[in-house]
């Protein structure tokens, strides 16, 4: 395997004792101190995450809105400048090539934020669907992304970054300047907590990161805790809970498919052969990715796609694709490596005290 690609923060991470792992081809911090301590801090105070590995594309020029609207599931006709929206890039069969957030920067001007593992695949797929003449650029390398998340995220942002973001609502973004560079502040995240995704030129990433971690309320948090935190919310992870074999509807996002545009995969996006269900597993023992799911009669009905002990809840949780007909049941059994774990279907999120939509007061 080739050497993992460093992010602008890799040197900082390594020199500050982070345990590093290759993730989606990048050299990423899995934990700085302890996954449980980092999880707890993210839920109660404020955390920063090195998310520089994720991809960013820019699309500008006449016809951008119409062209992009035919490439992805996002309804761009109702996406005003200053707002962003979650959605999917589909293949012709309605399977998910990637999940991504699209930012409307202006009329016929968009930024797309995609998963690190899918940068090349996404770029080629979208480019092939755009009309000739649209300027479509991959700016992943020169763009840094730092997530500031947690109930105290607004207070930290206010004290550490110039600008007033008290009026910034969920899934809205605004611009400011940080040490002479343009900084985009997006009120979004992958934690379920109040928080911001910060985009800026790669050269300024270390300066912003150091300004944030200098705050006593802030702890750097690795991908290990990011995964337990997102799973407590039931947010899907591409490559596990989302893939080209499953439609958005199967992943639980049928309600999001409101775009009137004739986007690729539209006719198949609502197909439901399987359903991604959320399972609570009483006790601390976790299932694992790939474990088989049985119905009450012991018949195999599906497979676990994500699973972990949920630190904020004190028990294990899992996401699993099961056959659509079997998904109506409430009780399942997960065939784990050493034992069978009874599991109860739950509505998401598992963790219900997230602060993501909390009103902030400046």
């Amino acid at each position, binding site marked *: 395997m080739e050497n993992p690609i460093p992010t602008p923060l890799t040197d900082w991470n390594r020199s500050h004792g982070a345990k590093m792992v290759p993730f989606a081809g990048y050299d990423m911090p899995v934990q700085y101190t302890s996954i449980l301590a980092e999880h707890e801090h993210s839920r109660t105070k404020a955390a920063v995450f090195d998310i520089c590995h994720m991809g960013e594309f820019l699309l500008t020029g006449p016809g951008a809105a119409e062209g992009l609207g035919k490439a992805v599931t996002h309804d761009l006709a109702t996406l005003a400048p200053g707002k962003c929206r979650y959605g999917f890039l589909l293949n012709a069969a309605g399977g998910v090539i990637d999940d991504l957030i699209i930012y409307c920067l202006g009329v016929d001007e968009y930024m797309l934020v995609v998963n690190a593992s899918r940068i090349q695949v996404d770029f080629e797929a979208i480019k092939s669907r755009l009309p000739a003449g649209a300027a479509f650029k991959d700016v992943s390398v020169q763009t840094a992304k730092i997530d500031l998340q947690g109930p105290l995220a607004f207070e930290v942002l206010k004290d550490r970054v110039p600008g007033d973001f008290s009026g910034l609502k969920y899934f809205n973004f605004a611009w400011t300047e940080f040490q002479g560079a343009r900084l985009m502040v997006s009120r979004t995240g992958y934690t379920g907590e109040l928080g911001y995704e910060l985009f800026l030129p790669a050269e300024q990433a270390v300066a912003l990161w150091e300004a944030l971690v200098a705050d006593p309320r802030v702890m750097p948090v690795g991908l290990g805790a990011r995964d337990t935190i997102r799973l407590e919310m039931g947010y899907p992870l591409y490559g596990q809970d989302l893939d080209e074999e499953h439609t958005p509807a199967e992943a639980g996002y049928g309600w999001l498919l409101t775009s009137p545009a004739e986007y690729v995969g539209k006719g198949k996006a609502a197909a439901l052969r399987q359903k991604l269900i959320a399972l609570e597993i009483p006790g*601390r*023992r976790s299932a694992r990715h790939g474990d088989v799911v049985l119905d009450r009669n012991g018949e195999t009905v599906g497979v676990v796609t994500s699973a972990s002990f949920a630190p904020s809840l004190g028990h294990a949780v899992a996401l699993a694709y099961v056959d659509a007909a079997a998904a109506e049941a409430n009780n399942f059994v997960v065939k784990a490596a050493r034992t069978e774990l009874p599991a109860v279907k739950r509505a998401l999120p598992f963790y219900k005290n997230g602060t993501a939509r909390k009103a902030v007061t400046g």
Partner: protein
Amino acid sequence: MQQDLLYSKTHEWARIENEIAVVGITDFAQEQLGDITFVELPAVGDTVEAGREMGSVESVKAASELYSPVSGEVIEVNDELEAAPEKVNADPFGEGWLIRVRLTEEPVGLLSPEAYEELAKSDH
């Protein structure tokens, strides 16, 4: 390195006094596993055998088997770990002990503190 203990190649330790052994996992092992979230132990009255699986330990990111460093009958298990498995991380040689065993055989093949230290060094 705890000097009064004997160690297994699979990173368990045993503190042996007369015919009783207290068993746990090493600091190296807990460090490698990361935050421990679940510990499965044998029950009181069970028989364990040196080198054989006796339970398992799970962390947020990994699951691995526990092997008994000694042979005998389990006379006590650390029930506290059921609700507080993090004690294995915090104090692997003390409050994070796993089981107490009445030996039925003289322990063989265990490593001295020096030999274990060498192994742990080369293991990572």
